[in-house]
């Protein structure tokens, strides 16, 4: 069964970046988010970071850290689980 947090993150990526022609479930767990099949670049990454910080109450301090966090959906889920208030990720 799919991890509810990765499913939530895929939904959030599609919503935030208005990727209207992409089904959230079609985003692979372990492919690079930036520079991968979604054709996202560093400017998209910044928009994602702003949204993720708001959504999960985390702080992604540097662009270096953002790059690590956005390495893939799976990496992002792990990053968020490590840092955020568990109440914000009830799954």
């Amino acid at each position, binding site marked *: 069964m799919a991890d509810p947090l990765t499913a939530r993150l895929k939904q959030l990526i599609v919503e935030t*970046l*208005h990727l209207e022609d992409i089904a959230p479930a079609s985003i692979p767990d372990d492919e690079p988010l930036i520079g991968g099949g979604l054709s996202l670049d*560093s*400017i998209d990454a*910044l928009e994602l970071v*702003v949204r993720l910080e708001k959504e999960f109450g985390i702080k992604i*301090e540097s662009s270096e850290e953002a790059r690590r966090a956005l390495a893939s959906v799976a990496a992002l889920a792990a990053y968020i689980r490590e840092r955020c208030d568990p109440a914000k990720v009830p799954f």
Partner: protein
Amino acid sequence: MNPVVTGAGFVTPIGNDRASVERSLREGLHGIERVEFLGNPDLPVKVAGTVKGFQVESPRWRDWSWPAGYEIPKDVVRGLAPHGVYAVCAIEQALSHAGLRPSDLAGDPHTGLYCASAGSAMLMHYNLAQMRAVRGVRGNPLGVVSSISGTLNFNLAALYKITGTVCGFVSACASSSHALGYAVDDLRLGRLNRAIIVGAEEANADSLLPFAHMRALSIQADPRMASRPFDVGRDGFVGAGGAVALVIETPSAAARRGATPLAEVAGWGQAADGHRVAASHPEGAGLRLAMERALADAKVGPSDIDYISAHATSTPVGDSAEALAIAQVFAARGLRPPIGATKGLTGHTLSLSGVMQAAFCVLSFSGRFMPGNPHLGVAAPECEGLELPRGTVGGAPGRILSNSSGFGGSNVCHVFVAPDRIAD
């Protein structure tokens, strides 16, 4: 040799293509609507000259949409301001009207780009608020290029790969007239053989309401009553947005590719008031001199002018100054060419207004009509001796004088000649 206009494109409150703009001008259909800025029904400003068919109210580009038929790639649109989207659509129309493809401009060292806009107050506010919210550590990397007053030139130069001249003008409501004037000079001097002139503005709370705090905006709630240039009851301008693009070429460049001249830009002139920050000289001293200089540059006299496209924005002071200036140049010589103030229909599009009037002149030539002043009730006393028709005047004008004035007392005038009257 004077340049000729070979293409025009419109995104305006009165239409988003040549045919609908011409119909609105001819039939006196205005583009002013009720608006509620900042969700505040108590604001005194109730109307604006709105652009239809675009959704660009959000500061987030991902929320925007524009009419079908214009492809604007993601990496382009996210560097644009809302008025930059208007500008791209206007340029696409102008190029197609001129029989040019974007690839004809790319890398051509003889094509220049001349832009006018006040920037995007909305995006600047939004971006800086985001930056401040994180105490400066982060900001939109495209915040500068999408919002400051050079935003059109930065983005359009990159989009169309302009390699001749790229420049922008910031003389307030005379800006796009300056853009056209200096483009004309560069063509006359042989520096270029083709120029794109584009002006664009947004009609939103951030761009317009600050003018209300200068008491420059009309507080009329009736869209038909708010913008009444030269009327005794006028109480300020109606803010408006949009974009207009013109393609001008040297006559030989136009002839080489078989393009049809739509008008000749026969001359231009400018002069300043040396008076106040924002208010015109009470007798229009700078505007009078600018008109005289434009006529002299075009090698014509006041009696050669068949129609005047007035700057008149519906402010008490500005319209009065223009009326008196026109009276000194024309009425004082017993001349009464019809005068039309198209801002009665469009509202005042600020830096865009000069090139918008220029493009309207092109439509007057091709459609053989002269727009009147459909919202004029009783002309103000200072309009004594001026011919201000309410309705459209039929017939083809041979030569049109088009005026514009901006803050700081900038005044810029152009003389346009109908294609069948060039060099006669």
